Structures are given as C-alpha cells and as structure tokens.
C-alpha cells in the first residue's frame, strides 16, 4: 500500500437531503439521508462503510460515484472539487470512479454477450478501436476467472457469482482508481464471496486499486478493510480499524452492530445448550 500524503479522494461536509413536496399541503417532509460526512480514502487502501439499512451508506456511495448530487459539501479528487466541474470536464473523470451494485442481474443488459458487456464501457468512454476494446475485454475476463469460451454467452446463462465477475470486469476495463462496491458481495454464497474477495485483494496489489466497500455485513468487511467507518442516521459516528472497532466500540450503533455479529460458533453453542436440535 503506497503512502501518498494526499488521499486519493476526500469527501468534506457531504450532505444529502430529500425533500418530499406534498400536494395540497404546506408541510414538506425533509429527509436527511446524509449529514456532514467527511472521509479520506488513501490510495491503494480499502475503506469500508457499515451501518444498518437507512443509515445513509448507499447515499454516500452514490454521491461519490457521481450518480447523485449531494445538497452540500465537496468531493476532492485529483486536487479538484468534482461537484464544481462541468459535465464535459467530469466526463473523463467518471471512468476513474466505478460502482459495482448489489444485483448483477439488473446491472447487465441481458441482450449483450459477456464480451460485449465488458467492452461496452470502453465504447461509451470512446476509448480504443473496436479490436482493441475486444482484446481488453477478453483480458479482463481472464483476470476475473471467466472462461474464454463463455464470451458469447448472455448474462442469464451465467451463475450469480459469474455475473458479478462480469460486472467487476466491466468496471476494471476502464482502469479506475477507485472502485465502490455497494453490497456487491451480499447476494453471493460464501464460497463465491471468498474467491471474489481474494481476487479483489490480488487486483488491488497488482494495480494499486482503491476500494470503498459498503456493506451491512461487518463480518465480511473486517477481514478485508483497512479502516471501517460506521454510519448511523446519515452521519459517520465512528471510524477505526476492524480490530480496534471490535475491542473498543464507542458509539451505541457500533456496539449494536458488533453485538449482532453472532458468530456461527456462538449460534451453534447457543442452540446446543438450549436443547434445540
């Protein structure tokens, strides 16, 4: 992990408010989805955001991925505040920040073949010739462990784990600096979670990738993340290394998350002692 003094990306005072205007009524409902979030992500590191549903994790991910516009705050990347750039200035920067969603099936166009899907982002970003795009797509497939023979298959012919690999390949082919994984492993079985996680670690080492990992599963991020930020009601309430978080959870919602982390061993022992066979 390189020790650059400047973080790869820094978020300052980021807030997002949703205003619900009700017809025939003066009262507007204002929802503070994200309040005053500050985060620094070092190049080559993995930062995890954990929290209960509704805590603002996905809002944060979507704002950093530039899919949503925050109400206030700054996103500093490459020395510039992305929120002040014009659409044209932003266009070449978008490839540097990629987002992987929880459900690969809805993220992939079912009419395109695997290799077409992976080459598509290059087409959108107007990078390379069409032969070069296919070559890069094939290379990405190999890196993600997708068999070359399956390149002309369509998403629904792949298993869930493979579909997520296609989604990741699509992101990687753009050579991003930051990859945001929004519950990207939650819908996968544990064997696939493990193999994709180790693949991501390998890719991080090889290409100096930086990851922002959003998850409700504290357990899975604790092995993978350098730092964990806990969100509650739109704010980051605690930010520590996994080991420190377990040993010394300060905020009530962190303590709840850690306490809810019933390990399988504890569950089995509990069942045995309660005589529930």
């Amino acid at each position: 992990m390189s020790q650059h003094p400047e973080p790869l990306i820094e978020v300052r005072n980021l807030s997002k408010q949703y205003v619900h205007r009700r017809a025939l009524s003066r009262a507007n409902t204002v929802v503070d989805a994200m309040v005053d979030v500050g985060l620094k992500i070092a190049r080559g590191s993995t930062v995890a955001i954990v929290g209960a549903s509704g805590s603002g994790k996905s809002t944060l991910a979507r704002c950093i991925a530039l899919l949503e516009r925050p109400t206030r705050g700054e996103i500093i990347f490459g020395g510039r505040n992305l929120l002040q750039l014009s659409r044209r200035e932003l266009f070449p920067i978008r490839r540097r920040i990629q987002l992987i969603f929880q459900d690969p099936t809805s993220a992939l166009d079912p009419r395109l073949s695997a290799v077409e899907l992976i080459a598509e982002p290059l087409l959108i970003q107007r990078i390379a010739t069409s032969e070069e795009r296919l070559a890069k797509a094939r290379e990405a497939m190999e890196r993600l462990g997708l068999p070359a023979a399956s390149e002309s298959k369509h998403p629904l012919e792949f298993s869930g784990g493979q579909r997520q690999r296609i989604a990741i390949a699509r992101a990687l082919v753009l050579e991003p600096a930051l990859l945001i994984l929004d519950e990207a492993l939650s819908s996968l079985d544990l064997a696939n979670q493990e193999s994709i996680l180790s693949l991501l670690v390998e890719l991080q080492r090889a290409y100096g990738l930086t990851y922002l990992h959003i998850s409700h599963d504290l357990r899975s991020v604790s092995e993978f993340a350098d730092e964990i930020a806990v969100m509650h009601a739109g704010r980051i309430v605690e930010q520590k290394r996994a080991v420190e978080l377990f040993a010394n959870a300060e905020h009530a919602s962190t303590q709840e998350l850690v306490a809810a982390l019933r390990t399988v061993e504890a569950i089995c022992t509990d069942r045995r002692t309660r005589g529930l066979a």
Partner: protein
Amino acid sequence: MRAAVLPVSMELLLKVRELAVEFCDGTTSYSALHGIDFEVGRGEIVGLMGESGSGKSTTALSLLGLLPSDSARTSGSVIFRGRDLLLLNERAWRNVRGSQISLVFQEPEIALSPVMRAGDQVAEVIRAHRNCGWQRCRDEAVAALARVGLKDDRFFHSYPHQLSGGQRQRVVLAQALACEPALLLADEPTASLDARSQAEFLELLRQLRAETGLAVLLISHSAEVQASLADRVVILKEGRILEEGTFEALYEASAHAYTRKLLGATRTRISAAELGSAAQKL
C-alpha cells in the same frame, strides 16, 4: 451413501427421489439437477445450500411446478402428502401452489403491489384459494397478519411503502401462510433485511413451526441464518447432493472443502472474547 436423517417418529411430508431436471433449447441441453434424493418431515426446517448455479432455485421451482414447460424436462418423483407432484396438470397445481406449498423470496417489494393495501393483498390470496365472501377473506387476512406479528389495525390499512422492509417481508409471509400450507419454500427470505429484522423474521418462522407444524425448505447462503434456523442442511454441488447433516456437524467436521467454504468454516474465526467488550457495553 447417505445416512437416514429423518427420525422414525417424524411424519414424512415430502419425499423427493431421483429428481432430475434438464433444460433443452432445441440444440443444446443442460442438466441442472442430476437425480437428487431428499426428504422433509412435518415441522422440519431443512436448509438448502450450494454455490450459485448448483441447482437450489431449480429444486425450489420444481417443487412448485414453476419450471418452464417448454424447455425443462423433469424426471423422478416428488411425493407430497402421498401424491406425485410431477404428475400434476396445471389445474391441479393451482390447488397446491399457495395453499399447500407456498413461497417467499428475497424482495418483498416484488411480491407486493404498491397500489394495494397490505391487508387487501393478503385477503386477495385467500379469496383466490378459498371460495369465501370478501368480508370473510378480510377477517382471515387480519388473522393471518396477526400470526406474523402485525396485529395492529394500521398494518392492514397500510400501503407497502408505508412499512419497513421487515414489515413488508412479514406481509409477504402472511400471504404465503394465509391458507395454512404444510410446506413453505423460503428463497433468501432475509437477504434484503437488516440484522434486527432478520433476527425477528427467523424467530417468527421458529414460532410458526412450533405452533402450526409448518415445514420449511430454507434456501439461504447466509451461514448465520442456516446455523440458527435449520434442523439440518442439504449441500448441493453442481446439481447433486454432496452431503447433508446438522449445520454444526458439517461446519466442524465436513470432509469436503466445498462444504466448509460454503458454511464459512474457512473464515478467520472471531472469538467470543474479541466481541465480548462490545456485548458487555450494551
């Protein structure tokens, strides 16, 4: 060789023998299931685990007669309450699906109509299966919602978007149990729920099993869910049953790396002591 795991005294509800499913699209064919055998007893919670693509969903769909008839070739037998379900025609299936064998799956938002009140959606299911008057259906819907812990009047009158994720999933469960099925298929039922709602939902299933003898076939890739709910777990690999047993037995002593990975046994173990300080603070 599989050990006989059903206690002799348990009433057999479902007996699957040599279930095989092949998908053909004219030119190519693909075997999703290669002839699997398993049983579910009355009131048993059987977990089904396997990598994506191992045949879990195909198994569930075949138990509901929902495999595409034009491309799926099914063979073997699925004996449920003395009848082979694979021999049923569509009309007979309609008497089974939803009333004797029900399904809940991951996203309650997909199962529920956003423009109908929760209570009416449960009543609608009852009306489809029982030929009773609308008022009677509504009364039964109220009872069904109460059984899943949504006793308050407001739940009946709420639209799905006015409910939390956990509450929506309970509404779906109320629909699935409205006609008191003997077997519930649950396909990743808690995957979209937060930790607390998940714990509540699992506790609810446990209660319903104890009170009504409901049997559950639980598909979940979450080791914690299976460990807390399943009486035994069946491991699927590439369309075949690799092994089965209690979660704990497989977790601690399975000879197969595949099983151990699936159950999370290969993850770094976190000791209770490491989590202890946080638990103590609560």
